C-alpha cells in the first residue's frame, strides 16, 4: 500500500506503539525482505541516493551520498557501525519522539536496511535521556524483532547479521552533534571531534560509521519498498518525500504533522496548527527549531524546502517551528534560547564556551532595562565570533542564528528596552518565561 503519509501511517490518536503484528500487517518489514532478497548492499545505497532523501537531523545532507563515502566491499574494514541519532534536544523539536513512541518498528526496519546498505555489523540508537517511554518501547520492539528473526544472526535466513542496541544518553544537547554523540557512546566526554576525518571513515571506536537522524532512517523502508521515483513524487517542490513538521507557540493547535516537503509555511501554521490564538498576532518565527534564523510574516508563503528557506536567510533545520507572537518579548525569547545554548555548550572552544554566557548576560541586562547601545555592538561582535568555521562545531553558529536575525529584525525592540530602561512587554504580563 502506497500511503501519502508513509511515516505516520501506523500512528493513530491513541498513545500506544504499533506492535510487530500490526506493523507487519500494514506492510512492515516488506522493505527489509525486499532489500535482503533482491538487492545488493550497494543497490540500497544507490536507491536511497536516487530518492534524494535529505537528512532530517538539521543539515539536510543527501543520505545516500553520505552512505556512499563509507568504505565498502572487499578490503574495507570489517567492522562498521550505524548509529541513529535520537537525541532530539533541539528547542521546539518533538518529531522523532512521536516516531519512536508510536511506531518503533518503522525505525528498526529502516535501521536494518540501512545497516545492510553500509555493511554495518552493529547499530545503536542513541536516545535522549528523558525519552523513557520511547526507549522502553524501542527496547520492547527490538526484542520482538529479534524474536521474528529480523535482528541477530542470519537475518531472514540470509548471511546478513546485525545487533541493535538502545543507548540512553546522560543528557546534553551537544550529544546530538554526531561526533560528540560518538564520543558519548564510547563513554568519553561529549566533545565534538574534528572533521576530517569524517565518521564515515573514522567514527565509532575509529571505525567507519554513519550517523542518521531518526526521521531520516524511518524513510528508508518506504523508499526501498516503493522505489525512489515514488518517494521523490511525494514532495510538492524541489525536495523529495514527506516530513514531520511541527509548530509550537501561541497557536490554537500546536503539534506535529506529516506533510509533503514543500508544503507552505502558511498552510502549516494556519491550517494544521489552527492559526494564532485569539488576541495574538504572528510577529516572527523560527522555521526549524531553536538554532535557525527568525523569519517574518512576509515569509509565510514560502514552501518548506531546504533551498527556499535557505534563500530567505534561514534554515529548514528540524522543520519544527517556534512562533513568536506580538505580545511576547522577543529579547526575552532570544535570551532564553541563549541561556539554553550557553548551558549546553560543551566547553571545548572559546567563542562558544565563553561567548554565549556573555551574550546571555547582555541580553538579560537589556531585557531588564539595564543595557546600553554599546552592548548591541558587542552582541554583533559575538555573532561574528561564532560564525561557522570560527568555532569547533556547529552548536555555536546555530546558537548565533536566532540572535543575529533578532538583532536585525528587532532592533527597534532592543532600543526600546535600552531607552526606556525596562521591558516594554512586562506590563502586558506576557514576558517570555521560557520553554
Amino acid at each position, binding site marked *: 500500500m502506497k500511503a501519502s503519509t508513509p511515516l505516520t501511517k501506523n500512528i493513530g490518536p491513541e498513545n500506544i506503539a504499533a506492535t510487530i503484528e500490526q506493523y507487519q500487517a500494514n506492510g512492515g518489514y516488506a522493505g527489509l525482505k525486499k532489500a535482503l532478497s533482491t538487492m545488493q548492499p550497494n543497490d540500497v545505497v544507490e536507491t536511497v541516493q536516487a530518492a534524494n532523501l535529505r537528512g532530517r537531523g538539521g543539515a539536510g545532507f543527501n543520505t545516500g551520498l553520505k552512505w556512499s563515502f563509507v568504505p565498502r566491499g572487499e578490503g574495507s574494514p570489517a567492522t562498521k557501525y550505524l548509529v541513529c541519532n535520537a537525541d532530539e534536544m533541539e528547542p521546539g523539536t518533538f518529531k522523532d519522539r512521536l516516531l519512536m513512541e508510536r511506531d518503533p518498528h518503522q525505525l528498526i526496519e529502516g535501521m536494518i536496511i540501512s545497516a545492510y546498505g553500509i555493511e554495518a555489523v552493529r547499530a545503536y540508537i542513541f536516545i535522549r535521556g528523558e525519552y523513557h517511554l520511547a526507549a522502553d518501547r524501542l527496547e520492547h520492539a527490538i526484542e520482538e524483532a529479534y524474536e521474528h528473526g529480523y535482528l541477530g544472526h542470519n537475518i531472514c535466513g540470509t548471511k546478513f547479521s546485525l545487533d541493535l542496541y538502545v543507548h540512553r544518553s546522560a543528557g*546534553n544537547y*551537544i550529544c546530538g552533534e554526531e561526533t560528540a554523540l560518538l564520543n558519548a557512546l564510547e563513554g568519553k*566526554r*561529549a566533545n565534538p*571531534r*574534528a572533521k*576530517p*576525518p569524517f565518521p564515515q*571513515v*573514522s567514527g565509532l*571506536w*575509529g*571505525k567507519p560509521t554513519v550517523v542518521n537522524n531518526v526521521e531520516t532512517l524511518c524513510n528508508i523502508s518506504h523508499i526501498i519498498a516503493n522505489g525512489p521515483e515514488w518517494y521523490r513524487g511525494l514532495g510538492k517542490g524541489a525536495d523529495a518525500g514527506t516530513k514531520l513538521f511541527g509548530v509550537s507557540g501561541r497557536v490554537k493547535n500546536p503539534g506535529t504533522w506529516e506533510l509533503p516537503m514543500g508544503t507552505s509555511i502558511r498552510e502549516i501554521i494556519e491550517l494544521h496548527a489552527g492559526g494564532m490564538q485569539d488576541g495574538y498576532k504572528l510577529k516572527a518565527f523560527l522555521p526549524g527549531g531553536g538554532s535557525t534564523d527568525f523569519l517574518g510574516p512576509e515569509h509565510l508563503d514560502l514552501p518548506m524546502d531546504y533551498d527556499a528557506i535557505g534563500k530567505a536567510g534561514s534554515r529548514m533545520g528540524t522543520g519544527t517551528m517556534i512562533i513568536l507572537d506580538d505580545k511576547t518579548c522577543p529579547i526575552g525569547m532570544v535570551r532564553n534560547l541563549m541561556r539554553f545554548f*550557553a*548551558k*549546553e*555548550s*560543551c*566547553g*571545548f*572552544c*572559546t*567563542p562558544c*564556551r*565563553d*561567548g*554565549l*554566557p*556573555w551574550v546571555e*548576560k547582555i541580553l538579560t541586562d537589556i531585557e531588564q532595562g539595564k543595557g546600553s547601545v*554599546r552592548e548591541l555592538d*558587542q552582541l554583533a*561582535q559575538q555573532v*561574528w*565570533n561564532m*560564525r561557522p*568555521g*570560527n*568555532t*569547533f562545531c556547529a552548536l555555536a553558529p546555530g546558537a548565533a542564528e536566532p540572535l543575529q536575525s533578532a538583532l536585525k529584525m528587532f532592533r527597534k525592540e532592543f532600543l526600546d528596552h535600552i531607552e526606556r530602561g525596562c521591558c516594554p512587554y512586562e506590563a502586558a504580563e506576557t514576558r517570555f518565561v521560557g520553554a
Partner: protein
Amino acid sequence: MPKIKIDGKEYEVEAGQNLLHTCLSLGLDLPYFCWHPEMGSVGACRQCAVTQYANEEDERGRLVMGCMTPVTDGGIYSIGDQSAQDFRSAVIEDLMTNHPHDCPVCEEGGECHLQDMTEMSGHTVRYYEGSKRTHVNQDLGPFINHEMNRCITCYRCVRYYREYAGGTDLAALGRNYQVYFGRQQDGALESEFAGNLVEVCPTGVFTDKTFSGHYARKWDLQTAPSVCNHCAVGCNTTPGERYGALRRVVNRYHGDINGYFLCDRGRFGYEYVNSELRLKRVLGAAEKDLLATTATKDTKVFPEISPQKGVQKLAELLSPDSARQVIGIGSPRATLENNFALRQFVGDENFYLGVSPRAASLMEGCKSLHASPDTRSPTIPDIEAADAVFILGEDVSNTAPRVALALRQSVRNAVLDKARKLKIPTWQDAAVRQLDDGERSPLFIAATEPTRLADVVSGLLVAAPQDLARFGFAVAHTIDPSAPAVTGLSQPQQRAAVQVAEWLMSARNPLLVTGSGCQSEDIIEASRNITRALAKHRAAPVNTCIVQPEANSLGLSLLQPETPTAHQQHLMQVAQLVEENQEAGLGTCLVILENDLFTRIDPHIAERLIRGAKTVVVLDVLLTGTTQRADLIFPASAVVESQGTFVSNEGRAQHFYPVYEGSDYIQESWRWLADAALYFCQHNTEFPPHIEAMANWEHTADVDAALQNAVPGLAGISEIPPDRNFRISGLKVARQTHRYSGRTAMYANLCVAEKKQPVDDDSPLSYSMEGAHSEAPPALASSSWAPGWNSNQSINKFQDEVGGHLRGGESGLRLTLEEAGSDSGWKTEIPNAFAADPEQLLIVPRYCVFGSDELSNEAPGVRELSARAKLLVSSLDADRLDIRNHDRVGLQIRDQDLELDAELCADLPAGMVCLPMGIPGLPHIDLDISAYAGLRLVQRAATAPVSRNPSPDIAPETGGQQ
C-alpha cells in the same frame, strides 16, 4: 617542498605540517594555546586563526585555525589580515571574561603564555562587566598548586596528563564555561610526570608548590645550564637561584634528551641543596679523649676548622709514609672531574669505585655492553621512534623515568602508521587517538613486577631475575639458533619468547631496554646475546638502552683504572684491605668522595671498614652516615654550584655550569684535592709529577684536559664546554636576565654598599645581568627569551623547527665506547631456574622514583612521597601468610628486621618479594650478602590508604602474549 605565501611573502615549507607549526617554525608570531609542539593540534582554543585565500583574486578570504589547517602548495594566507586579527583579539577577550586578571599575585606572572599571547593579540580593552565563574581548588600533593580560577580551558593539562603521560587521576570535569580540571577529590597527583603540568599549563593554574615556598619572579632568578643528577638519563635543566638559595628547577629543552619534559624526581628533588644537612664549612673531628667524655660512643664532635688547616691536613696524606696506605673511594654521583681528581690524588692503584662488588660488576657489564659493536645507544627520540620494544629486567619508570615517558610514546607508532595510511596528519592529535583501536607497537616487559607501563604492554612476564635472564637467553636463541638454548622453559614462556623474537626481528626500529635494575649480571649477559643475535639478523647494531642508576655510573666506570691487578676495585676490596693493613700494622687513610658507604654495602661492613681506617676524610654535599664518622670533612658543591661533567646512560658526556657559588667554603671536590696538592708542592721540595700537575689545576678545563689524556674513552670531553674564554661580541653569557631586579639593593639590609658580584673565571658565564643573553649557543643557554615570548614557549625561537633541534647544535658529546674486537662470542652461562622456598623468600630490589635516590630524598616533598614505598608481595605468599594489601609486615633478613607496608601483586610469582631500595628510615640491605628473607604479618591495615603509585589496574597475563 610546498611553496606558500604568508602576508605576501613567499616561503618554501615542510610538506604535511599544519599552518601554525609552519608559521612558528618560520619565526612568525601567531598566538596559540591548545596546540603544543609535542602534543599536536586539537583546535580547541581558536586562538591561532589566520585568513586563508582561495586564490590570488580572493580578497576576502576566510578564517581558518592555523593548527588545524594543513599547508598546501600554493596556499595563500595572512596573519595580519584585519579580520584574523580581530578574531584573535576577540578570543582573548572571551577568555578573559572569566580570568581573574590577578597577574600581580600569580606565580606564572612574567613567564606566562597567557600574558604573552594576550599582548600578541593586541587586545587591550575589556568590556565584560559581569561576575566571573569561580572554582574551589584542590590539594594536589607536595609538588603542585592548583588555582582553577585562572583556567582558560585550553585542555592542555588533561591531554598531557592522560593521553601523553598515561595518568588517570586528572580529568576535565563538567561542561560549558564551568569545565573543571582536577581530580575526583583532593590528593597527590599520581603520575611521576605531574610536574610538567607546571610548564604545560599556559596559565597560573598549575604552579610549582616547592617554588611557592621561596618564590621569586622568573626574571629575578639567576640561572645556568645544568644537568639533572637524580638518575642517569641526564635531562637538561635550568635551576634558578636567588639570595643564595636554589629556588626551583625547570626543563631545559634538549632535542635529543628530555625535549619538553622532566620527571618529578628531577624537577622537585632539588631541595636537598637547601637542606639543613648541607655541609658548608671545613670540619675536623675533635680529639678522641674529648669524644669519650662529651659524646656517646662513636659519635664525633665536629668543631669547624679553617679551610687552610683542613687543606694542610689533607696535604699531609700526600707525604710518603710507609706506615700507611691512602685509599680513594670514588662515587657514581660525583662528576668525572671530581672522581678523576681523587684518582690522581691517591694514585690509580689506590682508587676504588665506591660501590658494592655486584654494582661494580654490573657497571662493568653495562660498560662493555655499551662498547659492544652489536649495540648502539638510542637518544630519547630514538626510543620514541621504536616500533618494537623489549624491556628486560628494568623498571624504567623508577630507574630512568624520562625513558619510560618516551616508551609510552613508542607504543603509538602503530597508530601513527595507521593514521598515515588513512592520510590523517599525525599532528591531528584527537583524530589519531581516535583511531587507536588498542593496537600498539609491541612493548614486551619482562621484569620483577608489572611496572607503571603495564597499561600499554603487549605482553608481560613477571619473574625472578634469574628467570628473566633465562627468558632473555631464550629470546636470543629464537632469533639466532646458534645462540645457546634454554632448557626447561614453561610453555607460555617459550611461546612468549618466540613472539618477542618475532617482534624484534620484524621491526624497523627494534629497541632493547635493559640495565642493572635487577642487580643481575645474568640479565646483562642475556642482553648481550639478544643484541648479538639481533645485530647479526639486521646486519646493523641494535638500539639498546642500558639503564644504570646514578647520574655518572657510566662515567665512573670509564675511570676505572686499567691496572691488571685491580680488575674490580669495589668496597669489599677496600674492607679487606683495611683489615689486611690492620693486621700488618699499617694504617689506612680513606678519602671518600661524595659517597655514603652505608647506602652502598652492608652497614656492618661499612662500619668495620670505617672503624678499621686510621683516618677518614670525606668530601660531600650533605651530612650523611659516612660524613658523621669522618675525621675531616670538606664541603663539596652540589651540581647546581659546580662545573663538571656526567656521562649519561646514552653515553653522552654532558657539561654543566654553576648556577651560583655555594655559600661559605663550598667548592667542587676536585678543588679541595688540588688545593691540597698545591699546598704539598709549596711545602715540600720533592713531589711526584702527577701531584705537581694537580697543583697547577686552576680551571675545570685543566682537569678536563688531564682527564682526556689519562682516559682514552673520554677523548674529546675537554672540547665539549665552550672554552672559558668564549665570548660573544666580547661578552660573556649572562646568568641573570636583562630584567634582573634589585641587584644593587639585594643585600642592603646587611651593608649599604652594593655587594660585589662574584667573578667567574672558570666558565664563559658571568654572575651578572651584563652579557650576552639570547645569542648564547645551546650549551650555554640556560633559559630562552625572545621579544614577546617570556614563557618557556620562547624555545620555539631557538629551534630549527618547532619541536625540533636547537639551532647551534644539541649540547653534549656522544662518547665512542666501542672497543675494537670486543665481540666476546655467545654468553653460555645460563642460570638455573628460580626455585621458590616458602621459608626464605628471594629479595629482589625495587626502585622508587621517590625514595631510591639518595640526594632527592632530602627534598621534603620527595620524602613525603617516599614514605609510601611498599614491599611488593606475591598474592600467593600473602594468602599463605594471611597478609592483605597495605598490611604492615615484617621482613627478617639475617639479623636485620625491617617493617614496612605490603602491596600485593597477583602477577608476582610465589617465593619472592620486591624490597624498595634506599628508602629513608629503612636500613640498607646489601643484596650481595643477604638475598633471602622471612616474611610475617605485623599489623593488619586499618583502611586502605590512597596510594600515589597504585598498581596499574589492568593485569596482563603473566608470561602471556597478546
